[in-house]
């Protein structure tokens, strides 16, 4: 008799198309990727793209309206706003990457360790993260900056710390699910040690979830850091950071609204971009969404 199970190899599933292909066939993923790529290009080639140095005073007359020479106008010191926004992309990307990097790495370690070790390790780690979770992120970030002092670097650290509980929770939940599956227990019985179990089984299977969370988290980290800078607790003048620029533009809102309009727009577009990319990734990485 020839049944499916006795055929030497009857491959059932067609190979799934590449991640990028599937991401781009999703509208949110496509637009999000586009925006993020533009941001990365701005950051990488800022000196080539920007017509002026970002901190050069008197590049034009103060408070010029947008024109062909100064695409986004000039600020009160005559600095070219377009150049400042282009260079600002570097800070935005750096803030996002470092803050999310801190949350992700620390959160993953806490979550994986709690799910793997169980017992008192789990109780201590997860209750600590619960306590941190019960404050809003902004409050934690403000408290951190108050302790560390206002600077862009400290703002990144503060936003990173504030994000830890979310990542720890998510990693913990995902790792608990994986650790309960038979393949994991099979490896335990086969004699796998903690490092092998954590690094070759738990981590790779938890990572897809974490990548989605991190992509979505980039936008809120950027927003939080811009917020701190806006309050004067993050980037200090003359750093061309978007949140700080937004704050500096407040005094001239009536005479030169573009000083707030363009940095604000830049923040909004980038946040939208990372959100769309995160949504697209979530759609693509969800196994149930694969056939749609």
């Amino acid at each position, binding site marked *: 008799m020839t*049944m*499916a199970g006795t055929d030497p190899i009857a491959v059932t599933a067609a190979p799934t198309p590449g991640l990028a292909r599937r991401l781009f066939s999703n509208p949110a993923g496509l637009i999000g990727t586009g925006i993020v790529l533009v941001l990365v290009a701005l950051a990488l080639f800022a000196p080539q793209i920007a017509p002026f140095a970002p901190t050069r005073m008197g590049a034009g007359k103060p408070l010029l309206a947008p024109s062909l020479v100064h695409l986004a106008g000039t600020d009160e010191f005559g600095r070219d706003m377009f150049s400042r926004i282009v260079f600002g992309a570097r800070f935005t990307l750096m803030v996002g990457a470092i803050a999310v990097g801190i949350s992700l790495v620390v959160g993953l370690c806490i979550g994986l360790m709690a799910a793997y070790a169980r017992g008192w390790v789990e109780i201590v780690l997860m209750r600590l993260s619960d306590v941190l979770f019960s404050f809003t992120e902004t409050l934690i970030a403000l408290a951190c900056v108050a302790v560390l002092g206002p600077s862009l670097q400290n703002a990144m650290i503060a936003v990173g710390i504030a994000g830890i509980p979310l990542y720890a929770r998510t990693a913990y939940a995902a790792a608990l699910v994986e650790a309960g*599956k*038979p*393949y994991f227990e*099979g490896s335990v019985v*086969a004699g796998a040690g903690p490092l092998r179990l954590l690094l070759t089984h738990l981590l790779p299977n938890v990572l897809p979830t974490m990548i989605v969370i991190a992509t979505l988290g980039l936008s809120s980290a950027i927003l939080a850091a811009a917020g701190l800078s806006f309050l004067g607790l993050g980037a200090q003048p003359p750093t061309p950071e978007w949140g700080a620029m937004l704050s500096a533009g407040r005094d001239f809102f009536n005479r030169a609204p573009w000083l707030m309009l363009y940095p604000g727009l830049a923040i909004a577009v980038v946040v939208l971009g990372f959100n769309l990319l995160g949504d697209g990734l979530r759609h693509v990485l969800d196994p149930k969404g694969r056939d749609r």
Partner: protein
Amino acid sequence: MSEAILEVSGLTVALGRRAPRTLVDDIGFAIGRGERVALVGESGSGKSLTALALLGLLPHGVAHVRARSLRVLGRHIDPAQDAQMRALRGVAIGMVFQEPMTSLNPVLTIGRQMSEAMIARRGAGAREAQDRAIALLDRVGIDRPELRMQQYPHEFSGGMRQRVMIAMAMMLQPALLIADEPTTALDVTVQARILELLVDVTRENGSGLLLITHDMGVVAQIADRVAVMRRGRIVEEQPTADLFRAPRQAYTRALLAAVPRLDGPGADAPASAGRPVLRLAGVSKRFGSGRRATAAVDDVSLEVHAGETLALVGESGSGKSTLARIAARLTAADSGTVVLDGTDITRLSGSALRTARRPVQMIFQDPYASLDPRFSAARAIAEPLRIAGMLDRSAIGRRVEELLVRVGLGTAAGARLPHQFSGGQRQRIAIARALATGPKLVIADEPTSALDVTIQADILALLSELQREQQLALLFITHDLAVVRRIAHRVAVMRQGRIVEIGSADRVLTAPQHPYTQALLAAAPTGDPTSQRRVAL
């Protein structure tokens, strides 16, 4: 067969948005008043799709359902017309699904869920609907139905939920009841009673029954007629007794031959009476604490010897899986000792435990979760070898190829990922993985329950062969007595955490001493329609 309730011909179902694949291909059958027809087939044969298509429950856009003719109670129905299909559902055709745990809405009371359809479809008053619901709950054997109406699904056991589902499906007295694997998720003693109930309620109501199942034992027990499906087509249709006596198609014969039978051939005697590989003495495990604590395993002692298969039999919740986990030290026992290959592993931990546990390996029930989705077959099989550190890289590669060939997959399979294999093939990989380091004891927890019957037969044969070759001790956990018959040398019957009977497979299966074992045996489907009409008639 008198007048036909359902007549369908040329039913075709294709799935997929861009390039639809035809999964049900031009099938036709008829069900008469009071007739019970079974649609049998292995997973992927299209039997459940057929049921969903008849109910108009397949999603639009993805599913394309066509029929040359579909007549329900003499009326022509167009399966593409949503309104016509909706008018049928619940009223002319009722449905009982497989999974009693998820087919009831957890946030509504049973009473509300039962009355809903009657109020909506028949315009009945709340009082009237409630009275009928109570009467039906009483009919399906639910105690104190008035009280039960106020309760939520989580307050019912699996078997009781399936009773509720049957009562609910009968609320509008449908002319046809479709039951899709209604007992697959249930214990065997519960299964017997649910089947009996299905037969009774449909007979009283004069309804037809379309039973969808993979289980020939269930078919033998209640169906009048059987249609065998394979790859989207009906390959054979006959009255049940004729089909079992003289199947016309080779496929049907293979299907019937693969069904393990209680009166079938038993396992060959073990090559020699080996020494004990696993010894459990006075093992107990409680879950919870204080007054709510329940004993999952209660003072169990047993031995498994080299070269023998000990089957651990019991219904869900009997503690058999917990006992298996204790034997592999995945769970620590509260008291008692676990001796593995001469080493007491009860109190070991860390690397000492990892070393002492090397002689044991496990095979799990769910082939879809028992392999790391990111590990290729070869890497999965190599993992225990790498951990053991006994072989160098090239020797591991050779050993993996050897194992792949041995379990019937071939070396080319090594590079593939788990999702590219079928359930049976995955279970072969899991077996290869378990055998990689040459263990002395293999604990198999329901390794064939999720598999089709023909594949189950292959896997059982493979396990027996490997056992003979390598003098393996096998602790085989199952709820299926027919499987026990085929593979086990000795049987331990578990109930409520205790072993109520233990002995040779021959003795326990032919002359059971304990009443519970007797009840289990009486409830087990024998796969023979002539010996089993007691339920049907």
